[in-house]
């Protein structure tokens, strides 16, 4: 068993500037194994900037990011990219950004396996079939291209493609954005099941409070690049302290 008392990801004083403007600043948190951390905030509050900094998609101006005892920012690019295709996963908001649209669904799922040295066609295909089943895509769609899939299916395919190597840490950037409500609900249900079963640690960025209410154990609220409030999800949502969080919570439409 892995040590559950040590944080899998530890962030301190993270800052990213775009010239004189602040992308995000003074962000710090610890993420423990099996924990889901939600990041909410309005558009332009630095959520996505923070996520792409953590995943190493863009540089960082100050602060430190430690993954499993290793300094991510000081890591050689080779090592960081190896992490990114084995122990990490990144689910994009738009499935098109995370999928290879010109190759079949099976190849999309198999790509990470092939990138990590699998060279047995039968096994790769079996893994692809297995994963398509887990994300509720019919097996006979395995040779179809993602262009022939609906938005919800593309998003599920992207999730399958990312989880096939059994990652430990998953970054999700608004995974339910752009999907209709019933498809969102199914996707959330699926995600919740996968997170439980695989014991994933997840950082999920969203502006949808319902999503974090369902998925996240802990919540971080961002505004203008800064973290204004963090705590247990239910606690933050039920008893918001900061004025902005109160505004956010009260802005949810009641049906």
């Amino acid at each position, binding site marked *: 068993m892995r040590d559950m008392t040590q944080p899998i990801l530890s962030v301190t004083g993270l800052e990213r500037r775009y010239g004189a403007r602040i992308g995000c600043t003074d962000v710090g948190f610890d993420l423990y194994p099996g924990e889901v951390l939600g990041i909410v905030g309005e558009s332009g509050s630095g959520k996505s900037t923070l996520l792409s900094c953590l995943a190493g998609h863009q540089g960082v101006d100050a602060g430190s990011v430690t993954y499993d005892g290793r300094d991510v920012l000081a890591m050689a*690019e*080779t090592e960081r*990219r190896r992490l990114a*295709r084995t122990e990490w996963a990144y689910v994009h908001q738009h499935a098109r950004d995370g999928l*290879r649209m*010109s*190759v*079949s669904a*099976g*190849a999309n799922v*198999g*790509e*990470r396996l*092939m*990138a*990590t040295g699998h*060279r*047995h*066609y*039968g096994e*790769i*295909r079996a893994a692809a079939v297995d994963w398509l089943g887990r994300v509720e895509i019919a097996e006979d769609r*395995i*040779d179809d291209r993602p262009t022939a899939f609906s938005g919800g299916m593309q998003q599920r395919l992207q999730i399958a493609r990312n989880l096939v190597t059994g990652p430990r840490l998953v970054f999700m950037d608004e995974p339910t954005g752009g999907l209709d409500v019933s498809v969102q609900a199914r996707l959330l249900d699926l995600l919740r099941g996968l997170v439980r079963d695989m014991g994933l640690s997840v950082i999920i960025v969203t502006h949808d409070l319902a999503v974090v209410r369902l998925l996240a154990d802990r919540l971080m609220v961002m505004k203008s690049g800064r973290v204004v409030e963090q705590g247990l999800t239910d606690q933050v949502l039920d008893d918001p302290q900061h004025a902005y969080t109160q505004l956010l919570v009260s802005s949810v439409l009641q049906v």
Partner: protein
Amino acid sequence: MSDYNFAYLDEQTKRMIRRAILKALAIPGYQVPFASREMPMPYGWGTGGVQLTAACLVPEDRLKVIDQGADDTTNAVSIRKFFQRTAGVDVTTDTTEATLIQTRHRIPETPLTQGQILVYQVPIPEPLRFLEPRETETRKMHELEEYGLMHVKLYEDIARHGQIATSYDYPVKVEGRYVMDPSPIPKFDNPKLSDSPAIQLFGAGREQRIYALPPYTQVVSLDFEDHPFDPSKADHDCDLCGASASYLDEVITDDQGGRMFVCSDTDYCTTRTGMGHRGRLAEDAA
């Protein structure tokens, strides 16, 4: 004689190309950028290969030019004439006599020997191009040896056609390091790339890249464990010379479904016919 400098290019250009060649030989399979010149022929006609040939030629050389294996097709004839005129070197169609062979899409059947140089014309030097259109990204992938994508292509082949359907331009790995595009030679020729005593140079004029295989370099064709590489050819013997192990062209002879298979390497075929070998459709007088 002509008013051109020997072999058309000026000496400084040849020097620049030779430096790129040396670098390419030092890092087998690595694509070296070079300042490709405009040549008096259109892109796609071998401008890269011609520049390599020009940079390597010396007056003592005997040049052979082939196009799809044949010495007498348009591309081969025009390039051969070009160097006859601008360099005045001897030309030959005999593979064993040639010291420098420029080729488009074939490797001669006759085994090459030490001291020979084989120059390939390459349209698209980047093997990852069709799956990853970004040049910055493919360079990064070569740098970090991230070649999973190459197998995605082969996976797609098997998923769609039940086998690896790539029959030319078949990707190879050089000395366990760089994945290389062998130019559009049939995959039948891929095994000849490996461990060859000759120097093999690849030139892409439009894409401005040179890469190379020094003699006796290990070249492995990529495959899956359960779908191994198969250097296939048409399941026939040559109808002119009876050769059973050479790469064949299919020639339609009438509109009744008549066809014949002949060696694509014309020099190999004529040599064999000269030695008295006869195929199914050979005229005895020939």
